């Protein structure tokens, strides 16, 4: 009976997600931007490789170079995650949805399972595509999938994009408004988190932010710095943020009136 209900909810949420245009354009932008910028940066790096200082040449990470588009591409994933959830609230559909699936946990996690699975698929395709195309642009300086740490970084890139999307879904469930959610998440991931992680005085805290910790997994070549976690540790920290956002969203959805 319970599994029936879960299957029904998943099927219903799949119909919802495939029948609105925002799904298509947000995910397409994520793919195109990530790959496009990754290839561009890879091509520029190849041309300037000879003028790089020796220090940078020693820690040269061709895999990470090809992920240069993630910073912008992830923003489209944020929009995808936010819209999947806030579409329900901004249209009033949430009252129809919750009348159909009154168990709010089933509703929320059914939606997030479907949207998360789609984000995972698109994230993996994007990550592998941007890696191969980026390496092609790097020419003689390229890395191969079999090189140490490379497969982990490429799979990690797909996981990273997925977690960014799911984190946004959790935050959007708490905030309900698309404008408010995007108004907080976009500047946070594009500017604030990067500044906090770069400035010396805030670095200790900044490096634990979800995107800063999570993006560590995309580095195939270890860097000589004092980051207190490894690639999987960083992704774990990001996963904790995602769990916290989902828990907050679920708690509020459970207790609030549906509107």
């Amino acid at each position, binding site marked *: *009976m319970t599994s*029936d*209900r879960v299957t*029904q*909810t998943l*099927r*219903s*949420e799949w*119909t*919802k997600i495939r*029948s*609105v*245009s*925002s799904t298509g354009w947000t995910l397409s932008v994520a793919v195109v931007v990530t790959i496009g910028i990754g290839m561009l940066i890879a091509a520029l790096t190849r041309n300037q490789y000879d003028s790089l200082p020796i220090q940078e040449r020693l820690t040269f990470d061709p895999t990470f170079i090809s992920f240069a588009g993630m910073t912008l591409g992830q923003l489209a994933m944020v929009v995808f995650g936010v819209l999947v959830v806030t*579409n329900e609230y901004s*249209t*009033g*559909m949430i*009252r*129809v*949805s*919750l*009348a*159909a*699936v*009154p*168990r709010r946990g089933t509703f929320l996690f059914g939606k997030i399972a479907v949207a998360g699975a789609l984000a995972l698929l698109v994230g993996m395709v994007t990550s592998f595509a941007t890696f191969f195309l980026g390496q092609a642009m790097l020419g003689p300086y390229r890395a191969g999938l079999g090189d140490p740490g490379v497969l982990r970084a490429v799979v990690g890139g797909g996981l990273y994009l997925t977690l960014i999307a799911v984190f946004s879904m959790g935050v959007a469930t708490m905030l309900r408004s698309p404008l408010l959610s995007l108004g907080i998440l976009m500047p946070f991931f594009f500017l604030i988190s990067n500044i906090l992680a770069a400035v010396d005085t805030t670095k200790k805290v900044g490096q634990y932010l979800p995107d800063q910790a999570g993006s560590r997994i995309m580095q195939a070549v270890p860097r000589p710095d004092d980051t207190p976690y490894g690639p999987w540790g960083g992704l774990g920290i990001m996963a904790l943020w995602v769990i916290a956002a989902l828990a907050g969203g679920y708690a509020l959805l459970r*207790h609030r*009136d*549906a*509107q």
Partner: protein
Amino acid sequence: MIELDGLTKRYGEKVAVDGLTCTVRPGIVTGFLGPNGAGKSTTMRMILGLDHPTAGDVRIDGSRYEQLTDPLTCVGALLDAKAMHGGRSAYNHLLCLAQSNGIPRARVGEVLETVGLMAVARQKAKGFSYGMSQRLGIAAALLGDPRILMFDEPVNGLDPEGIHWIRNLMRSLAAQGRTVFVSSHLMSEMAQTADHLIVIGQGRLLADTSMADFIRRHARSYVRVRSPQRERLLDALHEAGVTAVEAADGALEAEGDKAEQIGELAAGHGIVLHELSPRQASLEEAFMRLTAGSVEYHAQSAAAPGNWGADRQGGTA
């Protein structure tokens, strides 16, 4: 059957629904009547488990809404016609609802046929007129072939043809033995569809009565009389045992429908009459009288919905 038991909803200090206890029965259309802001929509949202009651309880055929397996096959509701994603087609809107409750896909086509939207099934809902959205919302309510149907202000914004259609639909659903619960702020609308009335004002139950009983009790006849010798006329009426009250404009309103009797009485006493007209208080007036004390936002000029305080509390069950 829907049973409300002491249902209460507070928003901070404000009480939207106040200890509502009543039962909505199958086989008839039950009108849920109250002025705007009386708490009708809040009550309906609580019935569907969308809003959490502050106190009290709702039972749907004995269960709580959250406990229903595939709730759409038990309760179908239209709360807000525009509550759907405008970018989704009518067909997909209904399909995602059907799938969530294990309702076969074929049923989507059937209900689209019933509400007459088959031709626009693949069009996006944002291009729909209000009337079309209303029909789509009704299709969603009918989707699970539920025993209980609930409509919040279904005739609002509909053209006469649409109103006629919806009335007949509600009547036929009730005739099939289903529970039909429909809200409105218009008595005249209810008089044409409902068999039973639940009237609320400021969240409180004001009346729970059959439509026939309500009409019998409230559709009052009176005779409007104007005379320059009002005091003498009042005395004469009083002597004859006719109850009369003063209307806002100084005329008298005598209970009953005996205009002839009053005319002859006046003639007998040599009282000049300027007006003598039999009147019928409409149900709308009766409803306004019933809820007069509970309307939250009075329009400044419409302060006097009749001045016959005589039986103001009449009908309060």
